[in-house]
């Protein structure tokens, strides 16, 4: 009987103690989050520029949209476009654009205007990667329609597109495959 109790007690041992503490979670999400897309339109031949922003920062991963601008441009004007991709979820805002350009072969921006002639993108003027295929965070020329109008302008960033597929180097998103990192359909008013 004594022996039994001893053996019973022998099994009541503690195995292991956990060294990490679940009560102190990592303060900041240490995985990159793309929160913000800024589209900077500069009228060609001038230094006059306007910035339009989409931002969603509030939630855990993809949050609530906190800023969603309408692109307002004048008719029959040519603009250059410069895109900025930011991670504003961190204490110090991180500009992700240089990284996208550095890994340019794996990234491509696509543009889609609805109606088609609302904002006419000259895709040939997009910046290129080391294989001379478009990246598209910089576009040399986008022309607005001659008369007033409204619609949407969708900007997409695709990760690992197949740039050599038919039409992809010429703004054909459908053939590009890949995974969509950004897809923002800005409302547009040309007036």
């Amino acid at each position: 009987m004594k022996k039994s109790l001893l053996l019973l007690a022998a099994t009541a041992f503690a195995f292991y103690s956990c060294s990490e503490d679940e009560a102190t979670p990592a303060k900041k999400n240490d995985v990159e989050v793309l929160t913000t897309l800024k589209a900077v339109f500069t009228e060609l031949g001038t230094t006059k520029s306007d910035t339009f922003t989409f931002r969603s920062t509030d939630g855990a991963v993809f949050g609530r949209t906190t800023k969603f601008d309408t692109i307002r441009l004048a008719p029959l004007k040519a603009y250059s476009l410069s895109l900025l991709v930011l991670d504003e979820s961190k204490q110090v805002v991180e500009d992700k654009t240089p990284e996208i350009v550095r890994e340019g072969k794996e990234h491509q921006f696509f543009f889609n205007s609805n109606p088609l002639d609302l904002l006419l993108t000259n895709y040939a003027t997009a910046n290129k990667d080391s294989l001379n295929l478009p990246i598209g965070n910089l576009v040399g020329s986008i022309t607005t329609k001659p008369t007033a109008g409204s619609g949407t302008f969708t900007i997409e960033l695709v990760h690992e597109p197949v740039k050599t597929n038919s039409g992809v180097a010429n703004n054909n998103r459908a053939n590009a495959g890949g995974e969509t990192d950004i897809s923002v359909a800005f409302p547009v008013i040309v007036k």
Partner: protein
Amino acid sequence: MMQILRRVAITQRATIWLFFAAFFCFASTASAQSKSACKLELHGTITDSINHEHLIGATVLIFELNKSTSVAADGHFHFYNLCPAKYTLQFSMAGYEQFTTTYNLLKNSELDIHLHEGTLQFKVVDISASQYKPSNTASENTVSETDRNRTAGQPLGDILKTIPGVFAFQTGPTIAKPMIRGMHSNRVLIVNNGVRLEGQQWGSEHAPEIDPFAAQKISVIKGGASLRYGADALGGSIVLEPAPLPHSPGIEGFVQTNAATNGRTGAVSVQLEGNHSFLPKLGWRIQTSAKQGGNLQTAKYYLNNTGVQEQNLSAALGWKEKHGAINLYYSTYNNKIGIFSGAHIGNLADLERAFNRPDTTFNTGFSYQINRPYQLIGHQLLKAETHWNFHDLGKFTLIASYQNDSRKEYDLHKPKGGRSTGPELEFKLNSFQYEALFEHKPLTRWRGQAGIQYATQSNIALGRILIPNFRLYTGAIFISERYFTEKWEFDAGIRADYRWQRSYAYESDTLVSPIYSYQSVSGTIGAIRELPKGFKAKANFNSGWRAPGINELFSDGVHHGSASYEEGNRNLQPERSYSSSITIERSTGRLYGEVGVYANYIDNFMYLQPQYPESRLTIRGAFPYFKYKQANVLFRGIDGQVSYELTQRLQFTAKGSIVRTWNYSENDYLILTPADRITLSSLYKLIDKEQLHLSVRAEIEQVWQQTRAPKNQDYTAPPKGYYLINAGIESTFKYLNRNIYIGLQARNLFNVVYRDYLNRFRYFAYDLGRNVSIQIKIPLFNSNPKQ
């Protein structure tokens, strides 16, 4: 046989019945001259050695066959359809010492066994596998030895599909979760070696961290709360048990392998166990298995990045004393699973493109290479158990266990900044469980047990935020009793649970740590009635409850792969089930099997409800928005398996399941309800001798289209129905005094193109094409080395 199969190949549209009729004609002529030797019966009684009272409920195990039965209310136990052979029989009963003997069965026999209360037998065997079970008035099925042999090397989710009413809920071909009567994940409990498996069960893409090779017995209890293991098993429980440790001198072992054409997959398991005459109280076992597979194939193309690599090890050590024992168990499971790269999508438009892209987009040929995205899983279990018999009281058991579960998920793309080395998503879960059980000494017609349990858990989530860290404490007490009469057997039990959970997460720079605590009671009541002609009827009613899981409370974000925005609900209340089932079974005669009907009503059932037309706008575009809600739902259905031995050589088996669900709050069906299915198979024994068994098998697996799917909850309609033809040839034979098994199986023999509703990757790719596999099981030593 081949003739028949060819005929089916030519007229693929030939009906199932035509096929079976043809096979029937062919086989019955061939069987006319045969006689099966495996028709012997073994009956007996088990009585107390002093007062000669019948020990109702005492169990008998035939070790070689892993077949067990118990003494029925009339004082007898029965085994049917046994082959003439020398068997090791183990008799056990709580409060009595177990008794082992070998018996040479040559004709129908009857045995009278007297068990001694608390006296030591020289070769005492500790049959943990046949421990008293508090409730089996619910439907309980064990995966048969033949099915175990045929499915060797497959993941648990696939092995369990052999049981009617159990389905595999899949995330691509490499991840399969068991689904019981329409419920899965948190509502299905997995008990491995007496310990509740604690992984990240809430995730539909988190397969159970189990090496099936390590389990000698795998069984499923369908429907309802488990008194012993938890009230939250609303769908059912899966119980895995290792073989009892050897306590008679000698070393035994076996090697088991599986090689399959699809994925060029290979798996091997080696097991060794022993006991030595210089230390007869010590028994030991060590088992290890490994598996490697490459890209799997549909009927048309390879699925890129669907390889798997697995290495497992388990070890057990037991010390047997006169009145009890101490057992230690350790296991480690390590798995790397490739995720089909075509299933990784960024937004809804990507998903639409995935539906419409050509079949071959991701057909990059065969490779064993596992690239991103993949999962890296590690699970360890350490368990200590001791039990002691006290003559005048009963049996006491103490169990303590520790589990460490590590889950690392690597996305398709390396993150650009920050966490550059680790996985994009990581969970570390540490669980401790403590249990004290008391099984009272059998009183004339009463058997029973009571227990108290305590468990703690801590979860750390790193990387991409999905669920917060948490700390969890649970406690429970339960008691169950069973009463026998001549024809009836009743059982009833009650369980009380308490659960305290605190989560920790930063919300806008503030640490938020809400506490959620729940307590409730669950119970079960049931009866078994012996009917004439070997039939048995079982009825069970139980009520269980489940507290909201961490994901149901807190998830907030886009679910990878499913392109939906899922939002938790912090106001969820526990759900409660009212489950009833009736099972009719028969284990004798030429017609045998089991059929069960059930209805499971769940109050406050937690599920993801689409918020259509509302959507969530993110930088990746708009996503369909789903929120955890509660509803009153009903699961009901019928499932079963019936075999008929037309002749001694020819056997037909029909297996089927029907599940119906209804959401009363929304007046709609529930998503992911398994479609109706039936499997018809016929087995023909070509040779049926003691030294050599050889049989062929043909099977049709018919799955209908799910026409009862909810509106606006899915991206595409449920896929069309399909049928697969499977076939096999297998043999057990004696060579060098060893029983060797060799099987050759073909699944989806005609390489049919199909998609399955329960596979979440059906949006992206077809299901698997033809797979031909070979299984071998060889004992490492002579089958009778001990004297």
